[in-house]
């Protein structure tokens, strides 16, 4: 007998799998990004079902709200040649399908064996249990070391992005504000002394 929770889980799970499949099969890259958004939202639904409210909301706010919007901008701005991209698609499809099928078969074989799904029950917390508070406590106490390394990782990404993109191009026509401000009268104005013409 299925209870309501199980039904909701299967709905979200099916939606996630469908959206993920459409991400890689959609012809239009903008549609692919939108399907990725759907995949994120449905997986955040699964997290809500697991009572991980904070993570679910963060997934929507950070990934859907910020990251995917940036993604969408980038995809819209790139001039992607779809025809060239799909040239080899059909040629490699049978090979890819065979490999993927083999892997799915192996995974199902291992994970589908009865020992794997042996009864594991989740721990239920009281209604006033705040997992935001618990996460905050853990991140700044037990997990402070990995948290700091993650911060370093972001710093490295920042340094790398700037090092790779910020460079002076010889052909760019940009204003140098410092030079404009520091300009002196003698740089702009040339005083030419002329003898006054006489009347006659």
């Amino acid at each position, binding site marked *: 007998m299925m209870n309501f929770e199980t039904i909701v889980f299967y709905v979200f799970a099916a939606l996630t799998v469908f959206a993920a499949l459409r991400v890689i099969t959609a012809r239009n890259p903008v549609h692919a990004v939108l399907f990725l958004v759907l995949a994120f939202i449905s997986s955040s639904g699964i997290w809500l079902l697991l009572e991980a409210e904070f993570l679910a909301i963060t997934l929507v706010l950070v990934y859907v709200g910020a990251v995917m919007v940036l993604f969408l901008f980038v995809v819209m701005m790139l001039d992607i040649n779809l025809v060239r991209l799909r040239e080899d698609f059909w040629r490699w499809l049978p090979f890819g399908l065979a490999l993927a099928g083999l892997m799915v078969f192996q995974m199902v074989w291992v994970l589908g064996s009865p020992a*794997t799904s042996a009864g594991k029950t989740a721990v239920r917390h009281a209604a006033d249990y705040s997992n935001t508070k618990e996460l905050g406590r853990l991140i700044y*106490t037990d*997990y402070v*070391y*990995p948290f700091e390394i993650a911060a*370093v990782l972001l710093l490295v990404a920042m340094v790398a992005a*700037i*090092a*790779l993109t910020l460079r002076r191009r010889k052909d760019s026509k940009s204003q140098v504000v410092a030079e404009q401000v520091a300009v002196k009268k003698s740089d702009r104005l040339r005083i030419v002394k002329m003898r006054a013409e006489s009347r006659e």
Partner: protein
Amino acid sequence: MDLMTSLMPASAEIFLLIMTCVILIADLLIKQSDRLATYVLVQFTLLSCALITVGTHENGVVYAFNNMFVDDLMADVLKLLTFLAVSMMLVYSRQYLIVRGLFSGEFMVLALFATLGMMVMISANHFLTLYLGLEVLSLSLYAMVALQRDSAVATEAAMKYFILGALASGLLLYGMSMLYGATGSLELGAVSNAIQSGAADKNLLVFGLVFVVSGLAFKLGVVPFHMWVPDVYHGAPTAMTMLIGSAPKLAAFAFVSRILVEGLQPLVQHWSGMLIILAVASMALGNFTAIAQTNLKRMFAYSTIAHMGFLLLGLLSGGIEGYGSAMFYAVVYVLMSLGAFGMIMLLSREGFEADNLDDFKGLNQRSPWLAFLMLLLMFSMAGVPPTVGFYAKFSVLNAVIQAGHLWLAVVAVLLSLIGAFYYLRIVKLMYFDAPESHAPIAAGSDTVLLMSVNGLGVLLLGLLPGALMSVCAVSVQQSLLLH
């Protein structure tokens, strides 16, 4: 545990991070075009880190940050060698990068960040810290490979490295999440205990193990996960190739041995079988394909694949001999690879890369001393006595035979013999062929001096390997064989 007591064992990491941030800012104020002040600061930082690591060393194993960080003898030894390797890389590559306009503050800052990532990997005792350390290292390396923006080859190499690296990280993470699902913990010791107790689901464990080993194989660059190695080694500027091919191998040794030996020791009969396949395939493909290469960097890339296969042989043999010889092999490989890539940079000059086999023709006539040093390095890579490469191979083979895999040792010797061909071909080119160019070798005295120390070190360690070997054996005994 109290946070303050946790900070002591990690003081070298903390110092390195602070100094990297200081250098990042200080470099803005430095006006010299050769970045001498930044360079001196970076070398000073590495030296200080080494001193701090020695100063904070304590006997036994110290856990910190809620068991996420471990400070033991193996970690300290590998960290000191990492500092040495990065420092040598900077000395070798300074002139090379200056003439190519790449010797920037960002290069040095990224090298320091990569060092930090390696330190985190070496001292990790938790899947989270292992993974984060690996990412700090990889991200810095991707950026460094791409730093030469105007070179299409370097950009392509960076792209391949980045995408395949991300795929490998994904595999590794997926495997780790399976192991977490089976054991309920991310801490290596707890994972090992959970598997030992038999409470963990065996199917799920093996499922996760396959992904973890695939991810590790990707990062080590062993067959069949080796595709990125030749392109990245070839495409990246030689200084970056040297960084990728040297110190990270030490961190990779620590990474693999901590996951497989400390965390997944109870699954040893599963993973040692996988490692046998990876090792034999790597040695075969690496050595055979290297013969066909005319580009030296590509040849060394395939030789790296073969060497990593040899390293896995030591790991799968187990025991003090096995792990000790694998660590010894990693250290020796780093020394040889620094020398070999250093020689390419030494012979390069403005607008010219000495990365083809023909560029080494008749080196003996141009500079007998450099030719002799290259001879030592090549003999060592091939495993010719009395150089240290021979002893490294010998101790690994010894461990393999003791573990009862006689056929594996025979295969390894045969494949090494094939590998000897392409190393000795360079010796033949240097001594018996006429030089193609007579351009003077424009190397600074500091690089030539370091190259002499490096080359003679390979010989000296080969004559007296006992000290380094016993350091490796004691380190693995104190660090890996506790459980």
